[in-house]
């Protein structure tokens, strides 16, 4: 059963790495990808832990959750990409201006 936890840890790692990229990188494309990496990490945790005990069938509920989550993140990514393109067209930049106020 240990390897399951290994996957789960991998998921957590992906989550944290994505978070790091999301904060550090300025380019929107990277930020969007970072969010996707984060979500992949979460999905990995969900699926991995769903089959902790060998033998009996892995719990299908997390799988369903992951499928739902994937569709959600696909939609979000699509919207984000279009926003990025529009922004690029409007400002000519692929970055968010550094927040001046506050």
């Amino acid at each position: 059963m240990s390897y399951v936890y290994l996957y789960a840890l991998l998921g957590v790692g992906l989550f944290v790495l994505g978070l790091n990229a999301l904060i550090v990188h300025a380019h929107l494309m990277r930020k969007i990808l970072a969010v996707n990496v984060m979500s992949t990490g979460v999905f990995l945790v969900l699926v991995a832990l769903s089959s902790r005990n060998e033998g009996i069938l892995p719990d299908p509920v997390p799988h369903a959750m992951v499928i739902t989550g994937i569709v959600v993140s696909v939609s979000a990514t699509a919207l984000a990409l279009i926003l990025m393109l529009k922004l690029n067209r409007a400002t000519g930049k692929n970055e968010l201006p550094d927040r001046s106020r506050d």
Partner: protein
Amino acid sequence: MDRNYWLLPLLLMLFVGLGYAVLSIPEPVEGLPKMLVDNMELGGVSNPVTAVLLNFRGYDTLLEMGVLLVALLGVWSLGGMPDYHESSPGLVLDIMSRQLVPVLIIVAGYLLWVGADAPGGAFQAGALLGAAGVLLLLCGWRIGNKCSGLVLRILIVLGLGMFVMAGTGLLLIEGEFLQYPPPVASELILIIEAAATLSIGTTLAAMFLGSRPGEADK
């Protein structure tokens, strides 16, 4: 960048904490899976994941079709995108797509059908359809104006619409929202899934197009 100085240790701590938390999660309480097994024959399909997605937790899926639709609405509300790839596709791409699209459609149909009792289902099928659509768009194929209006919109809301209609209908007949009567459960699920597949495929393709057909480069 100076922010890394505080960021990295913070993230490391986060990783360690979360990792520890993950490892500390105990053996699963034998709650839900067992209950699933008991109810599988009522579920209408033998593939547990599909059963959960479409039946036990069908409501989640309903809302999630909503998410997909809303994303497309958002994309369209942002107005026209420039039409990329005006240049006609190369020979290879053209032929490949001609060969591939029918196959994709058939495979999508198969996945949809097999989803009832093996891995597969509406989303995988829809994704394939979407891929087919994207391929066509890449080859410069455009939706004819006559079906870019209401027809397209109907295709797009079909998934959510079917779900809601089924739910409401069942509410009136069966008494509970989305309560499939076991005998016809599988059929209902298949219908809803089929609708969902179509919608997902169309929506993904439309998202790729980036703007409401006919509204582009406005």
